């Protein structure tokens, strides 16, 4: 760990850093999918516009489909405009609220619309008298699900219901509906309630006073309810009953006693087939054409020049444009994966992505007329598409409008709408798949890279550790490098290291054995000289020659001593190899040695600080030999009259022996090499005896044989040197 901290920018880190560039891939994927979405969006735009164009083409040059009559302002004629309603209406809820915004398209009828009937003979000029201001109503006609819906809000100061016992239907407030059937026959119906009730419609004959001609009409249903200041009627009749003319008339009776109809307000002349107002509803012709185009997964609307919707097919909620199969999801049977996906991944993804909802309300289209730039443009003659984002759900809606032309004149426009949820969903699915795949690939790649980097750096660190461990503090070869058999560069490096170390080892070995070999080689000539001198001594007579022979012999003896010393270390090494260690008390051996040294060096004061037992595994003779060398060394360098102290203790898990003397400091640069073979720091004038620097080398050999360490250091508190060796204690 410390190594890792020491080198924070290791190969592993670098590789991980470099591999972080892989994160560009998901970004690219994301960009790609966005591009694709854009592409698809344009495609959808073209498709939608194409659909609009196709429809418009089908409707082109057919002005009859857009009956000119219907184009005037709605209230300019007696015609009734039928608004397409896009949701079911409830008839029995006592209220008109379910008509919602459509209510703003209701039309008002008042005294100007008074007509004369058989029941109020003032007519047909009654309207000009406008003697009764109290009666007026508002009307709205809509179409939903092949039925015509209508409501009337009637303002009437006196609501007079049909009395309980009365059979006649005209002596009270009532409502008349006139229509021309598809066969061209004028039919009239009367709704004459006995109170607020579920309406019961009668078909009437020529004269509605003729009770015999009354018959029940089941097709018309609805509710009559009373409101403050009047009443309201909400009714429905199937489109099958209807031709293309329709009218409503409200008969008002104000005097409960007289029960005479005082005024009639109607949408048109309800009793005259010719003058009955037209029903303006999307023509069946357009209907059929558009119906044929209706399976395009879009909402298609046809508007007239005023922007009023003539027809609407499909609803925008399900107009996704793109149909996506759910198959992909069903194939995944692994519920664990699904669990992870639903609970971990998707929440994560949808923090970024917006999930489109089909549960939105397109307010713009709630009414009976629509507007927008695209429509304006289309009605101006140029097809156009536009995107619109709904505020609340982030749903984008694609709208295309194409003009319908006839004789170079714009009759209306086809509007094709699709919401973009299909593409959005598709995009989201693609992104999910992309993210999943990339997540997987990234995880695998990251782990792979990390493992690879770890392996590489591990191997390099191994090699480094090996390289560091082959040479000890003194620069001696300790181990060899195990050559890697890997065929790559690191293996190569390892092998060449191993090779270098091997050759270095051979060279070191050659150097270390140099003295031994030299001494061996020199011994033969020395023997020749010595034996010759001895022979000479035996034969020569005369004082002079004897002196020279003696000197020569002294020289040869000294040379011999040198040779012996030179090979001592090698001999010791050979002996160490065959020696067996035994349990021994280090303190006892040191103690014995110190006793001996007191005899051997009577001139020096030896201070022993020994505390036993210090049990180690070792060979006492070698320990003694080691001590001989240390003491000899200490004695040699000690200042005269100064004590030499010997310390021996078990400290923690090591037996520690320290021999210190007062004397000159060690040269700093020699400290590490002091224990090497042939290293001596003796000044020249001290060389009374031959010194080869073998002594401390032997000390080190013995220490290493006991798996210990030896080091030399200068004393801190006085001029002197301490040599300390530490040998591991025996495990008890």
């Amino acid at each position: 760990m410390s190594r890792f901290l020491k080198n924070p920018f290791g190969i592993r880190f670098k590789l991980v850093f470099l591999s972080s560039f892989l994160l560009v891939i998901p970004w690219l994927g994301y960009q790609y999918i966005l591009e694709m979405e854009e592409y698809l969006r344009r495609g959808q735009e073209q498709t939608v516009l194409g659909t609009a164009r196709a429809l418009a083409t089908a409707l082109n040059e057919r002005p009859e489909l857009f009956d000119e009559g219907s184009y005037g302002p709605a209230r300019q004629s007696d015609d009734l405009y039928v608004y397409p309603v896009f949701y079911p209406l409830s008839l029995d809820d006592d209220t008109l609220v379910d008509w919602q915004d459509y209510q703003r398209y209701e039309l008002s009828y008042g005294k100007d619309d008074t007509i004369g009937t058989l029941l109020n003979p003032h007519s047909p000029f009654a309207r000009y008298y406008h003697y009764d201001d109290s009666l007026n109503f508002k009307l709205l006609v809509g179409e939903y699900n092949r039925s015509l819906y209508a409501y009337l809000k009637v303002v009437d100061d006196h609501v007079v219901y049909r009395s309980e016992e009365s059979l006649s239907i005209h002596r009270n407030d009532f409502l008349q509906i006139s229509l021309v059937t598809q066969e061209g026959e004028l039919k009239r119906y009367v709704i004459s309630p006995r109170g607020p009730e579920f309406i019961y419609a009668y078909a009437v004959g020529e004269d509605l006073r003729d009770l015999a001609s009354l018959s029940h009409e089941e097709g018309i249903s609805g509710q009559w309810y009373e409101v403050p200041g009047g009443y309201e009627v909400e009714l429905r009749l199937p489109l099958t009953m209807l031709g293309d003319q329709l009218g409503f008339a409200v008969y008002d009776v104000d005097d409960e006693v007289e029960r005479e109809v005082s005024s009639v307000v109607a949408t048109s002349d309800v009793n005259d087939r010719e003058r009955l107002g037209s029903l303006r509803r999307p023509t069946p012709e357009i209907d059929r054409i558009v119906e044929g185009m209706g399976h395009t997964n879009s909402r298609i609307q046809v508007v007239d020049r005023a922007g009023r919707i003539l027809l609407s097919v499909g609803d925008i909620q399900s107009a996704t444009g793109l149909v996506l199969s759910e198959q992909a999801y069903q194939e995944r049977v692994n519920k664990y994966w699904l669990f992870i996906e639903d609970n971990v991944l998707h929440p994560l993804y949808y923090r970024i992505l917006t999930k489109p909802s089909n549960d939105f309300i397109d307010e713009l289209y709630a009414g009976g007329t629509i507007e927008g730039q695209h429509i304006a443009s289309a009605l101006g003659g140029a097809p156009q598409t536009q995107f619109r984002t709904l505020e609340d759900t982030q749903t984008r809606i694609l709208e295309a409008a194409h003009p319908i032309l006839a004789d170079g004149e714009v009759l209306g426009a086809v509007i094709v709408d699709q919401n973009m949820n299909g593409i959005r969903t598709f995009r989201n699915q693609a992104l999910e798949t992309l993210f999943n795949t990339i997540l997987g690939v990234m995880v695998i790649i990251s782990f792979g890279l990390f493992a690879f980097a770890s392996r590489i750096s591990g191997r390099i660190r191994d090699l480094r550790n090996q390289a560091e461990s082959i040479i000890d503090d003194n620069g001696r070869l300790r181990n060899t490098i195990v050559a890697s058999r890997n065929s790559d560069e690191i293996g190569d490096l390892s092998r060449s290291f191993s090779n270098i170390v091997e050759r270095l080892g051979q060279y070191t070995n050659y150097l270390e054995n140099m003295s031994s070999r030299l001494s061996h080689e020199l011994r033969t000539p020395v023997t020749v000289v010595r034996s010759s001198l001895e022979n000479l001594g035996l034969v020569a007579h005369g004082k002079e020659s004897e002196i020279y022979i003696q000197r020569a012999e002294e020289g040869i003896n000294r040379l011999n001593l040198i040779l012996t010393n030179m090979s001592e270390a090698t001999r010791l090494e050979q002996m160490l190899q065959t020696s067996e260690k035994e349990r021994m008390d280090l303190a006892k051996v040191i103690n014995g040695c110190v006793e001996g040294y007191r005899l051997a060096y009577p001139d020096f004061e030896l201070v022993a600080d020994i505390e036993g037992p210090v049990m180690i595994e070792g060979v006492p003779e070698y320990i003694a030999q080691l001590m001989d060398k240390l003491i000899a060394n200490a004695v040699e360098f000690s200042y005269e009259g100064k004590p030499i102290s010997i310390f021996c203790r078990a400290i923690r898990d090591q037996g520690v022996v320290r021999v210190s003397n007062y004397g000159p400091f060690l040269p700093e640069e020699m400290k590490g090499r002091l224990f090497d073979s042939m290293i001596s720091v003796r000044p020249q004038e001290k060389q009374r005896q031959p010194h080869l620097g073998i002594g401390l080398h032997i000390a080190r050999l013995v220490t290493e044989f006991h798996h210990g360490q030896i080091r030399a250091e200068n004393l801190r508190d006085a001029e002197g040197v301490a040599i300390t060796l530490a040998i591991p204690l025996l495990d008890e």
Partner: protein
Amino acid sequence: MARRIAIVEDEAAIRENYADVLRKQGYEVQTYANRKDAMRSFDLRLPNLAIIDIGLENEIDGGFTLCQSLRSMSETLPIIFLTARDNDFDTVSGLRMGADDYLTKDISLPHLSARIAALFRRLDVLDQPTSPENLLQRDKLTLDIGRLTIQWNNIPVPLTVTEFWMVHALVKFPGHVKSRQVLMQESKIFVDGSTITSHVKRIRKKFIQVDEDFDCIETVYGMGYRWNTQNTSGNTDQ
């Protein structure tokens, strides 16, 4: 009749120097430079004593082979290895081959001739009765200074001449510590301390082969060795 000594040594100068000295002392000396010549001669007639170098011309271990052949020809023929090889391994090998002594070439000529004389003396007295004045008795130990033999519990301990002189030096004054230097002088060899250590080790082993409980040679660390008369384990606690 003069005793015949064979010197097998490939270094002519050394060979002739040794031969000269020995001849001066009255021995009949034959010299050979290699194993083949020596064996050819030995096949005809054995010498009374053989001094052999280990490395002979191109044979690294020729001396060992020669020693083995000689020993197989005669059980009693004294054989001395005189070689430049001073390592423990060769010493042990040489002595195991049946050599009576193993000397390194740095031995001085007088020391060499003293050994030769000792060996001949030992040979001479083998078939003569032991004279009591030559006997040194220490507990179970009997030293025959005349024959250079040692008995422990009346069982002979096969020591080389060098080893005998060492034991003799220790036993002369039991309880006295003999330093390695002293032992070196007494046994007439010139080696370093660790060689003495291995000599002492070998002596101990030889005694232990005779008596497993032998514990008379005590190491006094830092000083040397001493002979313990009591069979107690020696220690030098203050």
